[in-house]
């Protein structure tokens, strides 16, 4: 039997999972209904900072349908402290973070008390009968004031500074000192990375079934495996008695990369009442209590020679941690530390970051996590340098970037960029964009004094993906590793089950993994099933974040497939009565060299293994394999994004006239998925540039508590995105892939703001703070300078 199968990797296959995800005919955590299940409602602090003088839950307990009501004091001895897995320095200040506030509340929305009731309405209604007496304290809200220790979030710590993390290329031996850098031209700028709120479509939800001491937990999480480990560490329940399931999960963007108070509270409630419980948050809860992203003050200095050669980059960062440390929150700006030099050859680099507490919701990973912030600062500052030097912003970049023939290239941070071609991506983008024509139109509008000015913005970005080499994570004091695992089992009829340690929540792993397996094993795309997100079936994994799934998990899958194929080759050779060395795997089957009609497929081998009547000596009766892949290095996608904005100088309105994204994500498994990731990422990047900002008032109350105030763009607000690719395969993994999950969100923000500022240069404007709302743009024009 022979079969010839079209290559699947590279094909724009429609996503297998979409029918059920789009129609909703699937299992989300909130769909789960267990016999006897009770429902939770959580009372949240209305204050940013207060001492809890007393809590009286007695009236709430008496309400109909209420089973239990408890507060932090009731679980003081067992609730523990929520984890931070990335204490970036040895002397990091890491305050206790109880799931339920105990004695003090330190941000608006912090969980204070819990109602367990027979239905959700009864639970929510009972919240109104919980009497809490607060003694409000002066909150610490302004990040710079917090940095100066003007008022303390945690008085017992004596400081608001959690950590100071420094990288200096002179100390690291990867470059020289910024203080020695030739500085014929110096650009110093301050940028504010505003606070964002991840707007995943499915609110977070958790169900805990305490069973008979064997806990089953469903959670709308990105990290079922990591969550299981922390449940074991925090609750004392043995790990093998805990099963965590992330059923279909509706988006995350990093916002579900967390061990949440609500997950621990649900566990405590289930333990107390001995019955399954469910907590599903409202969107208002999400806005208040799910972790936020960004929120950094950046100070960047570029030095260069008059001819435009970069000589040094010096970055000082203040990063808002919020009231406590999140799971990887302290590490987010550190991920950015390696990206300020971007694609440029620069001999000297220094980075200083201070993590600071304020009385706000914690910050943590949000699409790009540190890398968008870094890319924004360097790409904005490069435009300022170009203006200072009178150079075209693209020519300045071209002068400084690493050339295709210089790869592999060791950066001033000590990272080895394995591959890339910045000229190719940029040239393609410029052509698609019509750069010269747009510049000419810009000149015409300037000359005629058109109230609507045209601006062109560029962003030539790279990012470090494929998180991550475990030894590097260890060196950076991250608690876990960065490997990923995959198992492949071929069933007797030739169908294939894959178990992956990645945990997709919208990315399309089921489809992409099926394509990979189809090519590796010569089976049909439809004949592959991908199992994920359940620690009982997928016992080993490190989940999905940081554009890691394909570049790490996909490679583990390839390795597992190749182990299976190697074994199948031995069996096929036995069946064909030849030596394994005489076989080549081609056209989906093992064929005898020179006699291609003599062939056996992996499916043939699978049935032979199942029957086990005639296996070669020493061959086990199974056709399955596991692999764990730990990358030796990161992967480095890159690209060039170009944006043209029409800026109405009379109203401040910004219209994105055209947007071109040329990305190099290495080898592409599924162009449809890549395109979707680029479009979604660009939308989120535009959203940071133009629309989104979490705002607290002077008392620490979150003002952007719903989508009325927190303005996320819809399709009607977004431009047509012209996307294309160049393809420089990664040399660091056998798939040649680099990752694409964060690229758009990293590239788009500076491209858009650069375009707005470019439009307004004739008005003396050299910055507009994000989000560039119409009013801010209008004020910048009016003021005729830095807004």
């Amino acid at each position, binding site marked *: 039997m022979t079969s010839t199968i079209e290559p699947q990797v590279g094909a724009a296959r429609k996503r297998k999972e979409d029918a059920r995800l789009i129609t909703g005919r699937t299992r989300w955590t909130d769909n789960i209904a267990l016999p006897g299940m009770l429902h939770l409602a959580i009372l949240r602090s209305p204050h940013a900072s207060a001492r809890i003088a007393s809590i009286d839950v007695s009236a709430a307990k008496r309400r109909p349908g209420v089973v239990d009501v408890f507060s932090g004091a009731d679980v003081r001895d067992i609730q523990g402290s929520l984890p931070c897995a990335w204490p970036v320095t040895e002397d990091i200040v890491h305050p206790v973070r109880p799931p339920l506030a105990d004695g003090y509340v330190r941000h608006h929305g912090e969980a204070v008390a819990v109602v367990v009731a027979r239905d959700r*309405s009864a639970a929510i209604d009972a919240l109104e009968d919980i009497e809490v007496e607060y003694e409000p304290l002066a909150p610490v809200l302004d990040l710079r004031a917090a940095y100066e220790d003007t008022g303390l979030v945690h008085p017992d710590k004596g400081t608001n500074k959690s950590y100071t993390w420094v990288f200096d290329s002179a100390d690291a031996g990867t470059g020289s000192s910024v203080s020695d850098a030739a500085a014929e031209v110096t650009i110093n700028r301050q940028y504010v990375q505003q606070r964002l709120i991840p707007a995943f479509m499915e609110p977070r939800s958790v169900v805990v079934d305490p069973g008979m001491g064997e806990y089953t937990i469903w959670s709308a999480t990105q990290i079922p495996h990591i969550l299981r480990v922390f449940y074991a560490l925090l609750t004392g329940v043995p790990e093998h008695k805990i099963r965590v399931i992330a059923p279909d999960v509706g988006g995350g963007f990093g916002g579900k990369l967390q061990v949440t108070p609500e997950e621990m509270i649900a566990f405590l409630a289930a333990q107390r009442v001995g019955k399954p419980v469910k907590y599903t948050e409202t969107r208002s809860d999400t806005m208040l209590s799910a972790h936020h992203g960004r929120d950094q003050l950046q100070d960047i200095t570029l030095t260069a020679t008059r001819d435009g050669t970069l000589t040094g980059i010096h970055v000082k960062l203040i990063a808002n941690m919020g009231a406590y440390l999140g799971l990887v929150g302290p590490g987010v700006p550190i991920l950015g530390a390696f990206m300020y030099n971007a694609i440029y050859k620069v001999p000297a680099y220094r980075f200083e970051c201070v993590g600071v507490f304020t009385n706000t919701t914690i910050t943590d990973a949000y699409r790009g996590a540190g890398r968008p912030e870094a890319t924004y600062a360097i790409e904005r500052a490069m435009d300022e340098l170009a203006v200072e030097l009178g150079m075209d912003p693209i020519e300045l970049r071209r002068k400084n970037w690493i050339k295709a023939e210089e790869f592999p290239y060791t950066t001033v941070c000590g990272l080895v960029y394995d591959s890339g071609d910045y000229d190719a991506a940029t040239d393609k983008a410029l052509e698609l964009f019509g750069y010269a024509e747009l510049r000419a139109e810009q000149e015409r509008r300037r000359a005629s004094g058109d109230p609507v000015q045209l601006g062109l913005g560029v962003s030539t970005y790279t990012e470090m993906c494929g998180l991550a080499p475990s030894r590097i994570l260890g060196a950076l004091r991250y608690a876990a590793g960065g490997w990923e695992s995959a198992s492949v089992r071929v069933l007797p009829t030739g169908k294939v089950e894959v178990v992956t340690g990645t945990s997709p929540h919208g990315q399309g792993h089921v489809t992409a993994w099926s394509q990979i397996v189809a090519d590796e094993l010569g089976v049909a795309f439809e004949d592959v099933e991908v199992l994920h997100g359940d620690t009982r079936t997928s016992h080993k994994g490190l989940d999905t974040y940081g554009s890691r799934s394909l570049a790490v998990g996909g490679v583990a899958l390839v390795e597992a497939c190749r182990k299976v194929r190697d074994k199948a080759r031995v069996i096929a050779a036995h069946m064909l009565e030849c030596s394994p060395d005489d076989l080549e795997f081609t056209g989906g089957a093992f064929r005898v060299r020179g006699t291609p009609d003599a062939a056996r497929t992996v499916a043939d081998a699978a049935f032979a293994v199942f029957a086990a009547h005639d296996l070669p000596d020493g061959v086990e009766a199974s056709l399955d394999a596991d692999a764990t892949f730990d990358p030796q290095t990161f992967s480095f996608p890159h690209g060039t994004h170009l944006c043209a904005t029409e800026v109405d100088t009379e109203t401040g309105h910004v219209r994105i006239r055209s947007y071109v994204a040329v990305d190099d994500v290495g080898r592409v498994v599924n162009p449809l998925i890549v395109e979707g990731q680029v479009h979604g990422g660009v939308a989120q990047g535009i959203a940071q540039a133009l629309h989104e900002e979490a705002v607290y008032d002077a008392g620490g109350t979150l003002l952007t508590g719903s989508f*009325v105030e927190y303005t996320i763009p819809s399709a009607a607000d977004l431009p047509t995105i012209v996307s294309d690719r160049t393809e420089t395969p990664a040399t660091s993994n056998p798939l040649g892939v680099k990752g694409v999950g964060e690229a758009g969100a990293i590239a788009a923000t500076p491209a858009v703001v650069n375009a707005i500022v470019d439009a307004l240069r004739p008005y003396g404007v050299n910055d507009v703070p994000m989000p560039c709302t119409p009013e801010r743009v209008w004020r910048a024009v009016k003021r005729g300078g830095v807004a």
Partner: protein
Amino acid sequence: MIPVAFDYVRPSTVDEAVAALAADEDAKVLAGGQSLLPVLRLRLAAPTVLVDLGAVPGLTGVRLDGGDLVVGAMTTHAEVAADPLVREYAPLLAVAAGTVGDRQVRHRGTLGGSLAHADPAADLPAVAAALDAVYEVQGPSGRRTIPAADFAVDLFTTALAPDEVVVGVRVPAAAGWATHYEKFHRTAQAWAIVGVAVAVQRSNGTIGEARVALTNMGPVPHRARDVEAALAGAPATADAVAAACSSVAVGTDPVDDLSASADYRRELARVLTTRAVCRALGV
């Protein structure tokens, strides 16, 4: 969130609806629910009973009555926007109704519901003011009319008694006017930061009568009568329009909030009114 528990009645006549409202001072009319339901879900209000007008016959649709266009209070925004009579005799209303909320909101939300809610950021109250609309309302003692100019008295507060419902909106049929609704918002689904409703007559290069009303420039729609007077008789040129509109923000009282400051709104009102009139005139 989940609203506080409430009773729900679905009357089949306006009289029954009025009786239900009269029977309970904490009753609230449900007329599409696109503003009310979010308010309930956020627990910003807790009415004891919702009186759903959705099953009352005769409250939907558009008809001509003498020289007036009459739009049923329960006619949805989508229906208003698409209605041929509205498009012919009150094109400003049709255009503005097409900008309300998003597609789903426009298919659920109703003209009467929006007007009675009296949100200063809502588009249609200013349009009704510009068109000299008259609201037909019914209460326990029968029907009466309230001119649009007298309807909104403050933020979310109207001249409507608690046991009255809006049953229809009467607009003088005015074919041949040039109109435009200029809506300025942060995102496509957001409320107007400022909106400008304009209807002008034009003859031989001169502006005849003009109507200008502003959305969200104060607690109630702002009818810019000084601008109207300045426009009347002015040449239909961009410069003349700009001059006539320059003081449109005088007498307005816009809020400072997250989406915009008051001084920015005043400046927007000037720019947008000028543009709206020019757009209507095609100059």
